[in-house]
């Protein structure tokens, strides 16, 4: 079949233009690509297979660029990275059965971090459904808990409306992953495509909520009466595009800002009101500030257990205002005094004209005192004594790349926390990391997605030696797509964060955490990627500069201190102010409260 846009203008074309034909007969497969194009899709990440072959056959007529991945999990993380970097919906494609089940981790990752992706899977023919046919899996059943919504499409005529609904659901309200499972016969059969008629029909879907006026009043009263307020800045700021509004609000009301992991970049790191990251590996003074506050203003965050510590002692004297688009998050973990359910940016714009400018210098000064001896405990202020510390590597990397258009994509574990602590993000969408699900293996594929979305950006992967080996097959994708991505492996020969937990909580029984690694240099070479190995501090900056100068991708194997620890740490289930601190070089005892 021929793509309608490229259809040769035959003799009868003239009569058709006269009647302005609205519909065209196409296969389901062609309808799929046409609808994706109409939704603004330029790139998809996928892997072919039997049940999705009709769609791949029709791909040649489409303008969409297909990135061939090496594992379907990679496709979902790439779509995810694409979405996080660009704010657009990312698209992943796979076949039925194992292709579809391989996507589950990526969907769960996107679900917990509210990332808009659309996953398209082939399904066995509709007549075969329920027969345990070859490569048949009930993927809509499997993914029910890890998608915002999902669809099984068994007729070509349903494809257009379903794709439109999928994109609308994925990107609106609280974003999330949507799966569209399309049977092989639906892809093969033909029908008319009438885009205008295929409007979403979602009578029960209400993404646009806004608070009642009385709630604004109560929120303003709390804000104006507060002496020790803190803004808890979350991912919702970036999703809502409310960076400007949050900044205006904080500056006008004189309120300091603590950030969640996914909130990093939502408020400039260099801003005087920026406290830094809160939570399990947040800075000590940030957690102390939250515990001493009399008002928490939660902006697009969900009081995850990693930022609250035990709820019994969480911010005991604070009233709470929760601005959140998802009503189901209200009172979920923390009972709040004023919920403002709606889009953060719109709520702040509504609130702003009524916010009084209040001098809170006393409170800000007292926060400065909470910093105490944090500076002298900071590893950046300690001599390296001949060791290569991951925190130093990341700090040096930040210094070298801070002025550029840089996106850092991390994996999960110690290096992720050091990145969050020492890479200072000034702009949104410059840190891409799996926060909620904590998916190891996320970094490399997500970075590929980010680079495809933002080809002009300098993309750095910061990844542990463990997580890298989970998805390193995507090195082939990177080379095939000719992407210049820098990969910094923070190689400590351990599953570092798990080892840290074993050190603190399991009597240093390092069960199954030491890693026997391949020669990463040879591995890179096998893929045609240049590599360097760094084991001394003095080599870090030259290596980073060499990578930036090199015209292709570069893998740098940083052989760092093996048994290093992320400080501070709030143990799981401990109070937020009860932190394990790095032993101070001056004060011998930790000042835990």
């Amino acid at each position, binding site marked *: 079949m021929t793509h309608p846009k490229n259809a040769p203008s035959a003799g009868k074309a003239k009569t058709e233009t006269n009647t302005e034909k609205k519909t065209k007969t196409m296969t389901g497969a062609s309808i799929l690509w046409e609808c994706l194009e109409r939704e603004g899709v330029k790139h998809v990440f996928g892997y072919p297979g039997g049940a999705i072959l009709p769609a791949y056959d029709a791909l040649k007529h489409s303008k969409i660029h297909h990135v061939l991945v090496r594992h379907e999990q990679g496709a979902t993380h790439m779509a995810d990275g694409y979405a996080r970097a660009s704010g657009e919906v990312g698209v992943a494609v796979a076949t039925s059965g194992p292709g579809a089940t391989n996507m589950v981790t990526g969907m769960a990752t996107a679900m917990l971090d509210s990332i808009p992706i659309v996953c398209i899977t082939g399904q066995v023919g509709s007549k075969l459904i329920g027969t345990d046919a070859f490569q048949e899996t009930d993927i809509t059943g499997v993914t*029910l*808990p890890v998608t*915002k919504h999902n669809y099984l499409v068994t007729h070509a005529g349903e494809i257009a409306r379903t794709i439109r609904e999928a994109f609308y659901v994925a990107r609106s309200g609280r974003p999330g992953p949507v799966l569209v499972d399309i049977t092989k016969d639906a892809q093969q059969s033909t029908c008319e495509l009438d885009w205008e008629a295929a409007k979403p029909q979602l*009578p*029960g879907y209400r993404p646009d909520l806004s608070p009642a006026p009385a709630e604004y009043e109560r929120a303003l009263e709390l804000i104006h009466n507060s002496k020790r307020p803190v803004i808890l800045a979350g991912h919702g700021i970036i999703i809502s595009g409310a960076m400007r509004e949050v900044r205006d609000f904080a500056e006008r009301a004189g309120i300091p800002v603590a950030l969640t992991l996914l909130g990093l970049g939502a408020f400039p790191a260099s801003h005087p009101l920026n406290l830094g990251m809160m939570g399990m590996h947040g800075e000590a003074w940030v957690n102390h500030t939250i515990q001493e506050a009399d008002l928490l203003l939660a902006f697009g965050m969900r009081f995850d257990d990693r930022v609250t510590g035990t709820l019994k002692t969480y911010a005991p004297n604070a009233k709470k205002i929760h601005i959140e688009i998802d009503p*189901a998050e209200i*009172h979920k973990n923390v009972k709040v005094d004023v919920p403002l359910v709606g889009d953060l940016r719109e709520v702040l714009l509504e609130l702003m004209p009524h916010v009084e400018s209040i001098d809170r210098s006393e409170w800000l000064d007292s926060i400065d005192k909470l910093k105490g001896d944090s500076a002298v405990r900071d590893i950046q202020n300690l001599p390296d004594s001949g060791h290569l510390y991951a925190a130093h590597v990341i700090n040096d990397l930040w210094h070298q790349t801070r002025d550029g258009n840089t996106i850092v994509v991390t994996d999960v574990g110690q290096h992720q926390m050091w990145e969050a602590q020492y890479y200072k993000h000034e702009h949104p969408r410059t840190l891409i990391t799996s926060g909620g699900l904590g998916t190891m293996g996320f970094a490399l594929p997500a970075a590929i997605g980010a680079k495809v979305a933002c080809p002009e950006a300098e993309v750095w992967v910061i990844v542990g030696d463990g997580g890298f080996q989970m998805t390193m097959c995507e090195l082939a994708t990177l080379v095939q797509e000719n992407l210049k991505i820098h990969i910094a492996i923070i190689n400590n020969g351990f599953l570092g964060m798990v080892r840290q937990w074993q050190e603190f909580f399991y009597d240093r029984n390092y069960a199954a955490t030491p890693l026997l690694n391949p020669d990463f240099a040879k591995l890179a070479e096998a893929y045609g990627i240049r590599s360097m190995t760094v084991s001394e501090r003095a080599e870090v900056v030259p290596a980073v500069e060499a990578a930036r100068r090199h015209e292709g991708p570069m893998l740098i194997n940083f052989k760092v201190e093996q048994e290093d620890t992320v400080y501070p740490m709030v143990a799981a289930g401990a109070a937020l102010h009860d932190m394990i601190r790095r032993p101070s070089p001056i004060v011998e005892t930790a000042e835990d409260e």
Partner: protein
Amino acid sequence: MLNTFMVYVENKPGVLTRVASLFRRRAFNIDSLTVGRTEKPEVSRMTITVDADGDQARRIEANLYKLVNVLLVENITNQPAIVRDLAMIRVAARHEARSHVFELANVFRARVVDVAPESLTLEITGGEDKIDGLLELLRPYGVLEMVRTGIVAMRRGSRSAGTNLTAENAAAGADSGTARDDVSYSV
């Protein structure tokens, strides 16, 4: 406490699974769930009873609304409502016990729907308490088999929650509980 939700959903395949999966995933315990057709072919209606405190009940409602196919949720726990359960009870009834069972059925306005040489089967409709009561009184005779539908519920009064299930009305519907024409009497 036991909360009763009326949930209007799109009549589409898999919607029951989505609702049931939600309760399992969020660790809410369903006491009973019934689902059936309504006056509109495109809308199904569920009556769900679940043990939850006030905060949990609000979260259940909010989570139900997150399901794309859910049209309207009403917590009618503290609303005037008609609540009905149906049970079929097969009870051992030989000799003189037979007339006693008949009498009890009469008193409870239950119907005898099947007669066998050694047993009677009663059908009873009513509130859960009424059925529990009959069941308790029948137990000494020997309850051989029993099945209940779980409750279905409807608000009292002339206002029908589901008359206009458009998005705007549905969003507002949950709060606008007390219209003037909502006056009615139990008969």
